[in-house]
């Protein structure tokens, strides 16, 4: 199944787009839920932004990063995370589906179960995060008087796409635990997922442990920090890692796919 079959790939892309659009439409139809989701996301991240503003009102820069540079990281992370919530939130239903035996039905359709899981939910919450993230990112880069060349636009696009794939892959990895332990109480996936919060600030702020964690274990650093070293032209011995963003994303995706296969094989072996 790892072989690239173009027809199959196009087919999957089409089915994915249809499913996720229907799910988003359904989510918008719950009007109250829609506004609670959007406003909730804005409020939650708004609080973080207020913190940054308050912090930098007294200190002009931290570890060589100015307020608007930090805001750039913040915005990029929010965009990637929000897109994940909009487009791939279904992974969070995996444990519940396994637990309730609903996962079975995904295996009797002629479609990849991973695709079906990803599209089983679209969170409108993400719309708020993406919008706020965009506003923050664009304002920050404007204030920094960033010189928008074609190369930089492409770089940002690459960063966002890789960021989306990275946060999705890590969420996947965290939830695949459901194949082994389908109890729905464990907060493990949330803990793993929340490590993304570190990516909203420059890694210079943290000790070596956390730096190692978000670079080599759960490489959220590649969602915003490392590519921003290049975007913002920062002097940093690890600047070269920014260019490794697509590589790091591919590596995490590969590991996730491998663990997913193991999990699926286990499910088909022992049931639940």
């Amino acid at each position: 199944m790892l072989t690239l079959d173009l027809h199959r790939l196009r087919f999957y892309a089409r089915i994915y787009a249809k499913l996720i659009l229907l799910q988003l439409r359904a989510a918008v139809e719950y009007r109250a839920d829609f506004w609670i989701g959007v406003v909730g996301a804005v409020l939650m991240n708004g609080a973080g932004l207020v913190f940054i503003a308050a912090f930098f009102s007294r200190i002009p820069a931290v570890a060589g990063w100015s307020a608007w540079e930090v805001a750039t990281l913040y915005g990029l992370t929010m965009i990637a995370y929000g897109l994940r919530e909009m487009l791939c939130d279904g992974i969070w239903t995996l444990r519940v589906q396994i637990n309730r035996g609903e996962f079975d039905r995904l295996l009797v359709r002629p479609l990849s179960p991973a695709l079906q899981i990803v599209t089983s939910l679209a969170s409108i919450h993400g719309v708020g995060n993406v919008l706020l993230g965009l506003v923050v990112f664009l304002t920050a880069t404007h204030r920094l008087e960033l010189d928008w060349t074609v190369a930089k636009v492409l770089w940002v696009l690459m960063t966002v796409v890789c960021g989306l794939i990275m946060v999705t892959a890590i969420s996947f990895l965290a939830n695949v635990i459901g194949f082994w332990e389908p109890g729905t109480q464990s907060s493990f996936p949330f803990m793993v997922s929340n490590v993304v919060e570190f990516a909203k600030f420059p890694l210079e702020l943290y000790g070596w442990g956390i730096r190692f964690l978000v670079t080599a274990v759960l490489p959220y650093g590649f969602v915003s920090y490392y590519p921003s070293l290049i975007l913002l032209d920062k002097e940093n011995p690890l600047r070269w890692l920014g260019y490794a963003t697509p590589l790091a994303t591919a590596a995490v995706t590969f590991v996730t796919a491998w663990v997913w296969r193991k999990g699926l094989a286990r499910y088909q072996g022992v049931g639940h």
Partner: protein
Amino acid sequence: MPIIEARGLTKRFRRPVKPPGLGGALRHLVRPRYEDLTAVDGIDLSIEPGERVAYVGPNGAGKSTTVKLLTGILVPSDGEVRVRGIVPFANRIANARNIGVVFGQRTQLWWDIPVREAFRLLGDIYEVPDDAYRATVGELVEVLDLAPLLPVPARQLSLGQRMRCDLAASLIHSPPVLYLDEPTIGLDVAVKARFREFIRTMHARRGLTVLLTSHDLGDIEELCERMVMIDRGRIVYDGPFAELTRRFGYERSLHLLFSAPLPEAERVIHRAIGERAPVIIVQPDETSVTLTFDGRETSAGELIRDLATALPVADLRIEEPTAESIIRKLYEGTLSFDGADRSDRQAIRT
């Protein structure tokens, strides 16, 4: 050539044995212990195209596991399985195109998506050509009367409505094989009747092969000419449903009502019928008694002739075995005068 074929099909599960409490859970982490559980134990099954087969057995007998093995959800531990020549677990996607599956307990539809869109999505997923899609959905909507349900999302459907939509959803790609896993669970009589009518219609029109698991005798009786019964992972009966009563229906009961109290009826009966045949006697109260006997060895007529003069019989009733009572007894393992129950018989003779 059979459309569904299983040989020596076996599924063993390895379940962790966790001692109770937190201490037990911790001990399990350090030194895990497992027990083997054989859910399906060497099943041979061969189903021809167009057959309608009821797959029955008590809870936990291995019915659902078998269905999961046949649909490719589970990988067998041993044995072979082919559906339309395809090994389901090895070629899950190709197999999925050949089968329709309805799980009575869960919906196949997407919770928040209207039925119409769900059908269209399934049409896309199964790559049904446009004209075939229109014809099939048109037919299904008409036969199942789905028109008013099309704009409704699955979460707003009643159980009966949902079942009708699920049936349609399982047939959109015109599969030759249809698995129904407890499809009528929780449905009212009217909806059940409609469901059976629908399956009969689709069988007649398309020559569907149907494998049905159900606890509802009506489903089995009205839909399936063949019944396969499984108990503790093994097939205990495979044959025409109608033959069940002939083959296992030898156990009859004779209920007697006395005109006067008779506390020691049992002794009197034994003396009256002597060595004629083994009989199990149950006396619920002083004025009545129930005799259970093997219809192959004696008849109700002979027993009544012997007893009518010995006992003050006021009224009597003969109970014929029904398919339901036979199935229940097979489930419970209490079918008397047969195999394991020989010991009873010895006890009565002595």
